[in-house]
């Protein structure tokens, strides 16, 4: 029982982080019909920035705000300078731009902050005694904090997208850019904001995961999150916001339970497990579980 609770809790913690990353990917996909391969590396950059600020004495919350601002700028500038010019050239050049950005950003992190891994203070108390006991399992505030933060963030995002004027514009631009533009919506600006917002989500995901990641904060911290996040986004449906969250949570839980309980899969194969689920879903439902139409340009 204790083990089960612990595994569920672990799965949930990871699942929420995957959900945030998946949500960021979906927001970008809805804007530019591409999967932002550099999403995790943008997040890594801002997470490093936040960590660096804390080493200089800034509070982690101040660092979080700074990371979000810088994240927004990186996302927005990327959209304007690298992605928009590729719009007419299609999927492949866009992807390649993102691969280029991915490589370059990781390299820049290394150049600026070195190659060491760092332990980073979290937003929530992380001491050995900061836990509550549930069925013998210790649920640490760090993990619970991630859940709460993610839930709040998701609620804010969903409210913003479904209840605000900006959200309406974003949905309109994602649904039919031409109609949106003819209705007076500056679609380009909406995309820029979308990319920026996605990068903010990623930045927060990074600051949530880095303190509890097995990798700590290092150049390799965020890439696995991208893998799981994109698998979650695909499973949910690349243009479905709700699907991303469900995909992320179920992937986190499935990963924890399957690798824990199913011997055949074994511990070596946990990324493979997630990706196999993704491929199977895609083969049967090419648009994911909750995705609508497949982007098709003839």
């Amino acid at each position, binding site marked *: 029982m204790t083990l089960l609770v612990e595994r569920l809790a672990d799965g949930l913690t990871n699942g929420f982080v995957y959900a945030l990353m998946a949500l960021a990917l979906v927001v970008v996909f809805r804007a530019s019909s591409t999967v932002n391969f550099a999403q995790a590396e943008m997040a890594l950059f801002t997470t490093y920035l936040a960590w660096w600020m804390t080493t200089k004495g800034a509070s982690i919350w101040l660092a979080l705000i700074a990371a979000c601002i810088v994240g927004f700028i990186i996302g927005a500038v990327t959209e304007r300078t690298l992605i928009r010019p590729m719009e007419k050239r299609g999927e492949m050049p866009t992807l390649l731009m993102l691969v280029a950005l991915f490589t370059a950003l990781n390299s820049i992190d290394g150049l600026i902050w070195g190659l060491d891994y760092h332990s980073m203070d979290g937003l929530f108390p992380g001491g050995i005694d900061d836990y509550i006991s549930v069925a013998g399992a210790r649920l640490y505030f760090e993990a619970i904090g991630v859940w709460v933060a993610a839930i709040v963030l998701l609620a804010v995002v969903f409210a913003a997208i479904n209840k605000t004027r900006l959200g*309406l514009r974003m*949905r309109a631009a994602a649904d039919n850019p031409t109609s949106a*533009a003819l*209705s007076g919506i500056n679609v380009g600006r909406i995309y820029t904001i979308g990319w920026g917002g996605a990068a903010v989500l990623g930045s927060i995901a990074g600051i949530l995961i880095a303190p509890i990641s097995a990798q700590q904060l290092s150049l390799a911290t965020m890439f696995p999150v991208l893998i799981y996040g994109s698998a979650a986004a695909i499973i949910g449906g690349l243009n479905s916001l709700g699907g991303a969250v469900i995909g992320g949570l179920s992937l986190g839980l499935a990963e924890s339970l399957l690798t824990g309980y199913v011997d055949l899969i074994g511990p070596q194969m946990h990324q493979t497990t997630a990706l196999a689920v993704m491929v199977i879903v895609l083969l049967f439902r090419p648009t994911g579980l909750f995705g609508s139409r497949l982007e098709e340009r003839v």
Partner: protein
Amino acid sequence: MSTLEVHGMSAGYGRAAVIHDIDLRVDPGQVVVILGANGAGKTTTMRALSGEVPVSGSITFGGRSIANLRPDQIARLGIRAVPQGRGTLTSLTVRENLLVGASCRADSEVEADIARWMDAFPALARRADQPAGTLSGGEQQMLALARALLGRPQLLLCDEPSLGLAPVIVRDLFSFLSTVNAETGTSLLLVEQNANLALNLASFVYLLEVGYIVESGPTSDFVNSDAIRRAYLGM
């Protein structure tokens, strides 16, 4: 005073121009129709005016040049287009579609306008909270019209509103357009294949043939005119 004035406008795709050296004018409150056969360049003309296609030549609206502005800039200046194919935002609800139409307005009368157009189109009111993708073709056309009107445009561009609709619905649509024009004073620029309907509504006509304006004049000049037949048959 809103007046659309077009001089020497050419536009097309890539380097090949589809329409050449077009002159056009729409006065306040006026209903103008562009008639022409398939492939004459009607849709290109509309897309040029709404900013979707790069143009050369001069286009002014209310004295201000709008040539090569972005579609959203043109829309915000008061020209709204109802595109061919209706451009329904399928995953949004009917009500949200209408709100998108009003998304650039900061006044407090948006809800009143929505109520007004829903009154005019009860079908929209009945399905206000359903995804717009579930509407029938005729309902989507009305939604597109209502969405455009929610921008309170001074000029409405309608690209073949009758396309693919049953005759009875088309009649309703045109009578509605006439009401709108009368009640709000919105100018209309229509592109139509259905000449009879259009001529009933319009006060001024342009004939487009393979990219050129070949004739123009008040509607009365064109009733039973050979020119219209020629424009359609391309003779």
